[in-house]
């Protein structure tokens, strides 16, 4: 079978001309590639690349709570029970509790 005879050459030329502009679209290629079975590595990458959306109001409340717990001194809101006894020019201060450090 000769594919170089006149009829063969004309057929090839017509087929080339008629389909010249056809190309798979980007969407089609993406659909094809995304259809493949994913490996554990792909799944891990997908997870790490995932965009996480955090709603602003709960995020601010959470951040404020974290700030209060970690940054502010523990006793800032405690009302210390202090008694002051005046004896002449001296004062005796009595507290409920006080941290004592070793020198």
């Amino acid at each position, binding site marked *: 079978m000769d*594919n170089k*005879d006149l*009829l063969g050459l004309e057929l*090839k030329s017509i087929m080339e001309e008629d389909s010249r502009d*056809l190309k798979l679209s980007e969407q089609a290629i993406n659909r094809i*590639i995304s*259809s*493949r079975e994913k*490996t554990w590595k792909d799944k891990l990458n997908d997870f790490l690349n995932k965009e996480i959306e955090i709603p602003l109001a709960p995020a601010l409340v959470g951040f404020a709570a974290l700030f209060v717990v970690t940054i502010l001194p523990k006793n800032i809101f405690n009302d210390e029970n202090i008694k002051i006894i005046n004896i002449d020019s001296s004062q005796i201060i009595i507290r409920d509790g006080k941290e004592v450090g070793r020198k």
Partner: protein
Amino acid sequence: MGEEKLIKNLKNGKEEAYYELVNKLGNKLLRSTYLMIKDEKEAEDIVQETFIRVFNNIKGFKGNSSLYTWVYRIAQNITIDRIKSKIQTISYEDYNMALDNTDEIVIENINKQILREELDKLNFIYKQVLVLYYFDDLSIKEISEILNEKEGTIKSKLSRGRVLLKDALERGGKLNG
């Protein structure tokens, strides 16, 4: 990337191997399918389905044929499934009719426009073989593997298709087959 390595990488799920196969065969398959069915959207759907089926079954590919032949076979099976209702069956005698004058088609002047129209009108089973042979540059042996038919049958279809086109050209654009 050689074919063996490509198959290995496909089986290991490497993304670059998937892109390589799609880049290598995607447009060629799309054009070839379009030439057979003349429906751009349907052709793209067939190509998509072909690759999806290839990727889903690549682990079971045993290498009895080349990877490309296997991909083409899947594409042809999907194409035939989709247009089954439109394919006219041809008798065995019809295939053999053309064998006597297979290589002796002499045409002095070809009206390209008439040839194009007649090619479009040609029965799918002839057009399919003509496209695989002339456009995809596949050998008779490769086409017989793709279509799972004997080489003699492919030769007959090819000859019959050519004879029908030649006759139509001689009559100025009227197909008999």
